[in-house]
């Protein structure tokens, strides 16, 4: 079993839809959770950063962490064609040092106009 799992997609939705992207993980030491967005042939860029359980909202994006279920989600409201990208979750343990980032394989999202 991989340490972090994501449905690879592709996930296709119509413009304006609410999108839910998810990751599950197995290591209970993970405390910090991130979502990166990666456009085709570009490097990943940080989208959201959350600590421990709960929700965090930033514009159309909401990150949700459920540590009891070892499950994190990214919700995108009013999705736009410009949201079409691959979304990577990443997580690090409480005693993180930079080399302990663990990334999910990514979910490819396509928002159709």
């Amino acid at each position, binding site marked *: 079993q991989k340490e972090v799992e994501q449905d690879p997609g592709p996930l296709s939705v119509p413009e304006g839809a609410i999108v839910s992207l998810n990751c599950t993980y197995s290591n209970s030491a993970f405390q910090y959770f*991130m979502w990166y967005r990666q456009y085709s042939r570009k490097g*990943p860029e940080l989208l959201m950063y959350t*600590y421990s359980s709960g929700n965090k909202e930033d514009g159309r994006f909401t990150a949700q962490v459920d540590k009891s279920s070892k499950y994190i989600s990214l919700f995108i409201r009013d999705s736009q064609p410009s949201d079409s990208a691959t979304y990577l979750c*990443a997580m690090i343990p409480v005693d993180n040092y*930079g080399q302990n980032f663990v990334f999910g394989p990514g979910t490819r999202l396509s928002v159709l106009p």
Partner: protein
Amino acid sequence: DAGITQSPRHKVTETGTPVTLRCHQTENHRYMYWYRQDPGHGLRLIHYSYGVKDTDKGEVSDGYSVSRSKTEDFLLTLESATSSQTSVYFCAISEVATSTDTQYFGPGTRLTVL
């Protein structure tokens, strides 16, 4: 891309040849990382550096070496390239390496080993 450049952006080489990829940053960040990205595997850490001449291995370091002689440059070398090293390579930087920090990525180098 947070002041990070990678060169070359694309390279095609033959099995058995040495290859060096360069990462250059203008952010004066202490920590630099090399990842490879392959379908189904996500980003996997190859090597990282926590200062000039200070480097350590990551998850998939076999067949790779690194050097950092200046704060701004981090080189990744494939001593004798193999087809299994065909991948997209990303450099990342971070200011510190604590739980509240995060990593910023360069644009990537697409390497094909024939």
